C-alpha cells in the first residue's frame, strides 16, 4: 500500500437494484475509486441497524447503504423499513458525537450504473474529507 491514507468504507447493498446498478457500472467501465467493499443482501430491509454500528465499532471510516428507489423495492417496502432504521442510526451517531456524514443511505436502481459510480465517488470524497474515524484514532 502507498503511504496515502485509504479510507475503509463498507457498502451494504440490495441484490435487485444497487448491486445490479454496480454491475452495470462495471459493464459500462465507469471508473470510480476502489475504497469501498460490498456486502450483498437480498434487500436493504434485511439490514439491522446494528450492522452499521458494528461496522463503525470495527473501525469503518464510512458506511454506505444503497437500495431500490422508494416504491421500487423488489419486496414491496423493505427499503422504507431500512430507511426508517437508518434515520435512527444517523440520530444515534450524532448523539455519540460521530459525524453522521460518514453514513449514507442512497437509492440506486438497476439501470443507474453511472449514478452508482457517482454515489461511491461522492461517499469516498466525503469520507476522505472527514479523515479517519475517531473510533480508530487511539489505536
Amino acid at each position, binding site marked *: 500500500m502507498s503511504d496515502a491514507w485509504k479510507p475503509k468504507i463498507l457498502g451494504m447493498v440490495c441484490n435487485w437494484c444497487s448491486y445490479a446498478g454496480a454491475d452495470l457500472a462495471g459493464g459500462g467501465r465507469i471508473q470510480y475509486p476502489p475504497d469501498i467493499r460490498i*456486502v450483498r443482501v437480498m434487500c436493504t430491509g*434485511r439490514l439491522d441497524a446494528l450492522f452499521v454500528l458494528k461496522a463503525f465499532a*470495527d473501525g469503518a471510516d464510512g458506511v454506505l447503504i444503497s437500495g431500490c428507489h422508494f416504491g*421500487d423495492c423488489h419486496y414491496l417496502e423493505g427499503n422504507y423499513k431500512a430507511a426508517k432504521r437508518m434515520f435512527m442510526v444517523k440520530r444515534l451517531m450524532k448523539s455519540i458525537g460521530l459525524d453522521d456524514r460518514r453514513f449514507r443511505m442512497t437509492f440506486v436502481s438497476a439501470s443507474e450504473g453511472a449514478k452508482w459510480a457517482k454515489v461511491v465517488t461522492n461517499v469516498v470524497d466525503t469520507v476522505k474529507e472527514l479523515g479517519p474515524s475517531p473510533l480508530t484514532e487511539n489505536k
Partner: protein
Amino acid sequence: MVEKKKTTTKKTETKKQDTKKEAPVKQEVKKQAPAPAAKAVAAPGTTTKQEARIGVFICHCGTNIAGSMDIPAVQEYAKTLPNVAYVDNYKYMCSMPGQAVISKAVKDNHLTGVVVSACSPRLHEPTFRTATKEAGINPFRFEMANIREQNSWVHMHDREGSTEKAKDAIRIAVAKAALLQDLFPKTVPVEKAAMVVGAGVAGMQAALDLAAAGIKTYLVESDTSIGGRMSQLDKTFPTLDCSQCILTPKMVDVGRATMIDLMTYTEVDAVEGYIGNFDVTVRKKARGVLTPAEAEARGIVGGGCNGCGDCEAVCPVIKPNEFEVGMKPRKAIYINHPQVVPLLYTIDFNTCIKCGLCVTACGPEKKAIDLESKDEFVKVKVGTVILATGYDIFPIENKQEWGYKRYDNVITSLEFERLICASGPTGGHLVRPSDGETPMRVAFVLCAGSRDNTGIGKPYCSRFCCMYSLKHAHQITEKIPGCIPYIFYMDIRSFGKAYEEFYYRIQDEGAKFIRGRVANILEDPKTKNLHVYADDTLLDRPVDMEVDLVVLAAAIQPKVDTNRTRKLFGVSCSQDGWLLEAHPKLNPCGTTTAGVFLAGVCQGPKDIPDTVAQAEGAASAASIPIHKGEVELEPYFATCIEEKCAGCGMCVNLCPYSALSLVEKDGRQVMQVTEAKCKGCGTCGGFCPGGAIWMNHFATPQIVAQIDAFLLGGEQ
C-alpha cells in the same frame, strides 16, 4: 487491513461503549461480536460440527480481471486466510475445465465450501452452484467474490487499489462461506394457467401461443376491444400490408380460442403470490351491456348484445372518438370500429345521461343494456404472467416550436394514419384540418421528441418513426398524384429486413429528403399554410419551406400507468421509464420477478415484427414453468430460533407478505413462518430485537462475519 489485527481488543471496548446507548439491543451485539468462525453457529435444524475447509478459486476472465490486478499476489494472500484449505486460479473459471478444477479440488481436499472469485453472482452464481453440487457438497455452500464488475472493470487503471480490493473481497467471501449451511430448495406446484396483460398485437400473439400450447390464458385488456395500437394503423411498412387485414384474423382467433378467456374493459387490480401461484384480482369495469352469455345467466334466453348498433343510433350524447384520435364523433354507447372483437357495445358512464333511449331501442328480446351495472371484481389464479401493456404517444405539443394544437394543419403521425385509413374519419381522404382541402405539399418532421436531449423530449430513438414516415410518403404519392412529401430527418434508420430497400424505393418515388432538424414552424394566418424553418445540413443553408400540412412523427413514451403496473407485478423500470428486462441481451423477455415476462413496446420501442417475436419468446418462456409443473424456490426464507423468540410479534407486522404469525408453543407465544409465503427479503430479520430470526443464507452471524472480515482482517 491486516495491521488492524492487534487492535481488536481495544475496538471491542469502544463498541461496548457505543452500544450502551442503545440499551434494549445491547445483548444482541455482545452475542454477535465474537462471531466465531465456523464452529459455534447454531442454526435451527442444522448442525455444523466439522471445521470449515474453504477452497478459493480465482478467475482471470482472460484479461478482464487479470489485466487489472496482480492475481498471484491475490492468490498468495488468499492462502493466509483462516479456514482456507485450497487456493487455485484459472483463466476461465466458468469453462468446463475451470469447473472441473473446482470439482477435483473439493474431492481431493475434502472442502466444505467454495469461493469463486470472478464476475458478478448475478451472472455465474447458478453455474458455480451447480459445479459445487456436482463436486458433492451442498450448492448453497458456495459464495462468490465479485472482482470483475465491481472491481477490475471499474478500477482499470488502479492496479494496486484493485488488487487490495480483491483481497478484501475474497476475505469477506471466505468469512461468509465458512458459515454457510446446507440448504434445500423447495419445489412448489405451478398453476396450469397464464395471464397476459394487454391485448395489442404483442398480447394477442402471446395469448394465442400459450393457448396453442394447451394453457388456459386470461387475456386482460383495459380498452373495450382488442387490437391495440396496430388496429389504429392503416398500412404497415415495408410490405404495405393493410394493418387491419393482417391483424383481424388474429383478433378473430383470439375471440374464438376456447383456451383464451378474453377479458376486455378490464384492469388488473391486485396481485399476490409468486411464480406458479399468482392470485390476480381483476376489475371488470362497468360496461352497461350484457354479452349473450351474461344475458343467459340472468335468464334472458337468446338475449344479449349482438352488435346491431340500434342503441348507438338513438343515443343523444356525442363525444370525440378516442380511437380516431378525437377526429370523429362517437356516442356514449359505442364500439371503436366496425371490426371490433368482441363485438360488444360499451356505455361510457362518464358521459351517459341515462336517458334510457338505448334500452328502448335494444328491445325486450335482447335486453342487452343494463344502465345500473357496476364494476365487478374477479379473482383468477395463474402460474405465470406476461405484461404487454404497450405505449403512449409523447405529448408533442410540449415542443412548442412546432405548434401542434396551436396550428390546425400540424398533425401527428397517428392522426395521419387515421386520416389516410379507409375506415377513418374521412374515409381515407387526406385533408387539411383547417379547410378540408387536399394538401399538395406535406412536410414530415422526424425525431419529433425522440433523440431529444433538451429535457423536453425523450433521449431515446422511438425506432419505428423513420420507417412509418417513409411509408406515409409513399401513401401520399400513391393517393394524391402530384403531392410532394418533404421529409426533414436527422438520420434515416432503416435497420430491418427489407427496410433499406424500402427507403430507396421512396427516394425513387419522388419524396424529398432534407437532412436537418426543424427549428421552428410558423403559420400563415390567412392561408393556414405553414412555414417550416430548418437547416439543410447537407447543403449547409437555411430552409424556409411553405407547405400545406405538417406531420410530426411524435416520439413514443411508456404508458401513463406504467408505474402502477410495475408496482403491481414487482417489475423495475429502466431509466427512460420502460419496463426493465432481466438482462438486456440474454433475457429480454424475463424480469427480475420470477414468473413475470415482458412482450412488446412496454419493454422498449420496437416495431411490429420485433414485438411479435418478443411476444412469442415471452409466451415460450412463460409456458416453461407451466409445462414443467413445478418450480424451485430459492431457500432464502426466514426461520425462527424459538429459544430466542420473545413472542413480541413485531416481525409479524413488518412482513410485507403476511408470512409470519404468532403461535402458541409450550405455553408461550413464538413466531412461525409460512415458508410458501416468505420471499426471503429479511425485513423481519433486520428488525428482530432478540436476534431470533435466522435468515437462510443471509443470517446475522454470516453478515457480521463479513463485516468483521473486512474491517478486522478476518480475525474475530
